């Protein structure tokens, strides 16, 4: 019995041997490595975020993927980023203008529990900026269509002398109505085209804005 007590005193009784400790440190290191790897994979990913979103880095640090904004969006525009689009941003909200457009109701901001989306005024919201795809735009290739010009709520689409749409990047707030209603993919579907003639891109991801 004396031996036993001795062993206890000298700490032989602890399950935390040197080997076990190394294993634990290794496990923690694997988790840290996983984080770094995913961050590396997602370093260039940019998405159209709901209104009031912080800058991409800040947004990712605060979005807990609780899906509240996606649930309340009345136009069904907010959808999760898919695994095929980005591993780092999977399940975070993005705007899918194929499904709808942003009517700036700001309900997503109201329900966001973490402040990843923060209250902004309708006048200062910038979701992205629309760009005309001259290869796909019906007006630029055939002529005749002025849908985006007619429907833009912010008069951010102008027509040039040949009645082709041009985006006024200062007026455009990226609400996505133009992309949503653009008939290009339907009219050109016989070519196998699925793209829209006007698409909203994240600010900074497409052409740099002239200031």
């Amino acid at each position: 019995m004396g031996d036993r007590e001795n062993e206890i005193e000298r700490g032989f009784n602890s399950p935390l041997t040197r080997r076990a400790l190394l294993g634990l440190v290794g496990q923690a290191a694997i988790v840290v490595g996983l984080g770094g790897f995913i961050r590396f994979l997602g370093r260039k990913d940019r998405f159209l975020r709901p209104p009031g979103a912080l800058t991409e880095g800040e947004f990712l640090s605060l979005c807990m993927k609780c899906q509240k904004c996606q649930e309340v969006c009345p136009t069904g525009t907010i959808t999760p980023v898919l695994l095929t689009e980005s591993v780092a941003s999977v399940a975070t909200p993005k705007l899918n203008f194929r499904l709808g457009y942003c009517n700036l109701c700001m309900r997503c901001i109201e329900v966001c529990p973490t402040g990843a989306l923060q209250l902004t005024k309708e006048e200062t919201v910038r979701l992205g900026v629309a760009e005309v795809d001259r290869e796909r735009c019906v007006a630029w290739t055939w002529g005749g269509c002025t849908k985006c010009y007619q429907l833009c709520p912010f008069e951010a689409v102008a027509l040039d002398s040949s009645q082709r749409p041009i985006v006024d990047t200062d007026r455009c707030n990226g609400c996505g109505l133009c992309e949503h209603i653009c008939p290009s993919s339907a009219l050109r579907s016989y070519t196998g085209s699925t793209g829209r003639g006007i698409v909203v891109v994240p600010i900074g991801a497409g052409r740099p804005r002239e200031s």
Partner: protein
Amino acid sequence: MIKIRVVRVVTASIVILLVLLGNACKIGDGTICSLGAWGISFTCPLGFLQMALASRKVLPQLWLSVALVLLSIIVLGRFFCAWVCPAALLREVFIGKGGLKSKREKRKGKDHATVRLRASSPSSPSGLLEPSQKKTILMSYSRYAVLGGTLLSALLFGFPVFCLVCPVGLFFGSLFAVIRLFFAKQPSLELLLFPALLGLELLALRSWCRSICPLGALLSIIGSLNRFLRPTVNKDKCLASQGLPGRACKEACPEGIDLLNESGSLSLKDCTKCLECYEKCPVKAIELRLV
């Protein structure tokens, strides 16, 4: 008599239904990550810590909802792990009777139990830990290591890393992928990959809950504040206390807690209030004291 296990499965299912209902009605109650609406939510404490470290902010907007979680843990302990977590639900339903323990583990546990009964009477505390006890304790340490790694990773790389592989998130991700498939006609790779990863975590890494889950580890730490509804042994009724064989409570405990010898096993801070010990005790010697 309805089995406690069935009650647990029903409870966890009700929570999932609440999430789905909120989703269908566009209430915005979110998933379990931050469950609740109209300004009152329960926010995942691990998510909160990760976000605070990742953004290097104190996030006062989340204090109320995290305080609600802390309060619930003080009152009910680590109940989340047994009664709410969808991963636990999946394990109980698919890994089968006895729930959280794999069959092999269970068989091994039985062998150990009989050996121990012969070797030492449970009432006499022997200072030395047996190999099986050491393993149990090491497993619980391993969760804390993963928790530490998770928090460090969030701090270094600026985003809540664990949320990407969290079984709770993967469960709801899979569920929403199915909903998108049927209601929005949008098939996605998530339909395959999320359930596959979830299955890998719960089946291949069978001891996920006991040796990996950092959320469980965090709940254990907070669970040490819990003083209510702790299972205690009535020594007058307990067979083992009278020197008779029989340790049904220890074998039933999915966390590996030995109610008679807490020093040699995990302590009650790890108790998930699953009530298996309460149900399995043949002489009803386990009491749940309110305070």
